[in-house]
């Protein structure tokens, strides 16, 4: 009797689940009908109450810590835009974010674009940080003729594949490396040192491999010799042997490219091996910019003196009053202003500017608005759009913002101190090179991550 009832219950439960699935899936098909007031193209003369913006960030998977910071940044920007009256050219329509998780996986990103465009009917899609996710997602948005704002991904294919609906706000992998090389040249010049050898260690993803490739290309032009070229299969479990190999080769500089988890492993392995190259670790960012990296390493001393290319103007709080105010406001909520927050913020604001200029949710009009978009940013004429600190946002024919620049920072006393370009330099800051051999005592001189120590305004 019991057995029978149990099986019957199972079957009933299964049928209910099947029914729910079928009902919900058929509900999805209603997306085309544009039944919600905020979806689809706005007819001329009518303003929607809300405009949905589609966001795809890695909320789970290997880059989740980074994606969640993008999400907070975008949400804060949307809150501010709505508090200031929404999209004025559309009668004050409020922006509503629609969040999707890419799971840090290539085909999931493309599926999410499909969902955002055909189910949620969003007029613009923004994302996706990881290059392997962004490339197929951008391709799909392009095929669906929907404006796609790429933020965070640096893979070259995103803007050189002939996509007509894709616009990238941030820099490419090549720009990142060029900034690192310029920073190294500046350090050589200011500190009177000469770099002769280098090592590259990188995770074997498109981002890591691209970074290493460009670093080797530009280093070769400088006449530096590569003594170790070490790709690492991700996710790694231990990087001690790779660190030992680099230590034995004794390069002047090490270029490291890892996402958060592997970056922590690498920093820990270096610290435990008492290893530091004489002119430092130089990284294009990735995991070495994420909050989880700084709070996850065994000892904060492992990131002291490290050089990181930050994808935003770190000197912003010193140069711009509004960024200082925002930083203070966020601090009261326990949020730290960093490059990923800034990227999320700027991406949401660029989408808003395009909607404001288009005055409609018509995709073609938004694309035209993005093509014509030209936002300048300087200390004399600051723009709240450009929290990332770029001097300008203007897309070229391929949809690439050629003015996206970051800042080369060095961790000094636990603070990311802006050094290169000189225009983004912290007051009175200078390179610390060669790196002091003070592993045992350095942590004692460092402030908590997120604090500004002696650079506090």
């Amino acid at each position, binding site marked *: 009797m019991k057995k029978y009832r149990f099986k019957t219950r199972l079957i009933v439960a299964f049928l209910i689940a099947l029914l729910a699935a079928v009902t*919900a899936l058929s509900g999805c*098909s209603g*997306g085309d009908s544009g039944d919600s007031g905020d979806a689809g193209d706005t007819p001329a003369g009518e303003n929607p109450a809300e405009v949905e913006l589609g966001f795809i960030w890695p909320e789970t998977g290997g880059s989740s810590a980074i994606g969640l910071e993008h999400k907070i940044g975008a949400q804060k920007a949307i809150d501010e835009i709505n508090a200031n009256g929404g999209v004025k050219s559309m009668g004050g329509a409020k922006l509503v974010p629609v969040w999707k*998780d890419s799971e840090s996986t290539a085909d999931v990103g493309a599926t999410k674009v*499909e*969902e955002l*465009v055909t189910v949620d009917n969003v007029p613009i899609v923004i994302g996706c940080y990881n290059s392997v996710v962004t490339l197929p997602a951008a391709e799909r948005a392009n095929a669906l003729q929907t404006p796609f704002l790429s933020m965070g991904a640096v893979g070259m294919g995103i803007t050189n594949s002939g996509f007509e609906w894709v616009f990238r706000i941030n820099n490419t992998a090549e720009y990142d490396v060029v900034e690192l090389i310029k920073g190294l040249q500046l350090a050589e010049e200011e500190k009177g040192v000469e770099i002769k050898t280098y090592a590259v260690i990188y995770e074997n*993803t*498109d981002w*890591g491999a691209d970074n290493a490739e460009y670093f080797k290309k530009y280093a070769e032009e400088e006449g530096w010799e590569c003594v170790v070229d070490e790709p690492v299969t991700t996710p790694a479990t231990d990087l001690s042997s790779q660190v030992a190999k680099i230590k034995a080769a004794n390069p002047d500089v090490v270029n490291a490219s890892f996402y958060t988890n592997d970056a922590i492993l690498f920093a820990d392995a270096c610290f435990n091996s008492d290893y530091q190259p004489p002119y430092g670790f130089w990284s294009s960012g990735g995991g070495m910019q994420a909050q989880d990296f700084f709070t996850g390493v065994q000892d904060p001393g492992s990131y002291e003196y490290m050089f990181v290319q930050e994808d935003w103007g770190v000197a912003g709080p010193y140069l711009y009053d509004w960024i200082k105010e925002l930083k203070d406001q966020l601090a009261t909520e326990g949020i730290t202003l960093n490059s990923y927050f800034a990227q999320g913020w700027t991406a949401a604001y660029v989408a808003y500017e395009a909607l404001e200029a288009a005055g409609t949710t018509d995709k073609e009009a938004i694309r035209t608005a993005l093509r014509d978009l030209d936002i300048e940013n300087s200390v004399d004429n600051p723009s709240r759009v450009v929290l990332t600190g770029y001097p300008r946002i203007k897309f070229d024919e391929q949809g690439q913002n050629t003015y996206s620049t970051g800042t080369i920072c060095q961790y000094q006393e636990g603070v990311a101190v802006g050094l290169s370009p000189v225009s983004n330099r912290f007051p009175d800051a200078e390179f610390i090179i060669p790196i002091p051999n003070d592993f045992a005592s350095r942590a004692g001189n460092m402030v908590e991550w997120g604090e500004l120590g002696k650079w506090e305004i």
Partner: protein
Amino acid sequence: MNKQDEKLPGAAPVVDGKKGFLEGKLFLLIFAVLFATVPLGMSSFTQHILVLVLFYAFCASAWNILCGYIGVLSLGHSALMGIGAYTTTLLLVHFGVSPWIGMFIGAFLTGIVGVLIGFPCFRMSGPYFTLTTIAFAELLRVYLENTKEIFGMSTKGASGITVPYTGDNVAMLSFLGKIPFYYLMLALLVIILLITWGIDRSKLGYYFVAIRSDADAAESLGIKLLKYKLIGMFISAFFIAIAGAFYAQFFRYINPTRIFGLDMSIRIALIAVVGGQGKIFGPTIGAVILIPITELLSLYFGATLPGLHLFIYGVVMVLVVLFMPKGINDYVMRLFSWLEGLLFGRIRKAKETARTNS
């Protein structure tokens, strides 16, 4: 049999009379009509999900031929899919070979690779075989992530390859809409189900099942274990490579991390196991249930809390495996059989009553 058992799903009411033409095929026909018409009028996203359902049903069915019928657990099928995808795409990008031809070249090549891998691997059993298949897939993934070109053809390493879009072009297996992909995948699924059905009823199928049930007993009866396992491997690899070629054309992007990754292998195996391995329709039932659940959970819970949809998916999987260890297939089949029994029993009863009355 007690009274309660008589009422169990699957125990059709026993009524005398001839079987009608539709009896035993009713639900097959209903689903055939449903599958043939369901994407029409749906949104592009729903069509996208439906293509994924068919795609994973096809992949799991290909996996099922080797693993379900012969009873070995491969978690390296993504590598075979990857070889198919890369062969087709490289032939297309570098030589302009149509994916229709490329997919069969890739499938034959993958079949041969499968046999070459199977030759040493099938000498191992249980977890050792599984571990070897994982190692093989990881080996290929790491190799491709580190390799910029193969035989002079650029593979772009970890960055992956974008498949060029050639407009709506049947000859190049390139479509903007989802409908052509849907019907292509449906046709492929029907083909693999027919082949599985054929195997299931053939001597080959009996050999496969005999190996699964008791390899030593099968061998003692004269069944050459290695030979039949290699045959299973060739068929399975051939079809999973075709799935790889389809994946490349559908997503127009392939990278080693995803297509050679362990995630993909596990997903395929999970669908087949949950649906019912060693059964003709098991993998299809698994895909029809699991893929929409994944997407719906993401749709409704994705924005609530990061990762919540994946957590719920995990809980659902655990419950299914705990309470339906032989797969959902048996329950679905018994339900259909019960419903058919009810329906046709009534029809026969009505006919009989009419005959008696007249």
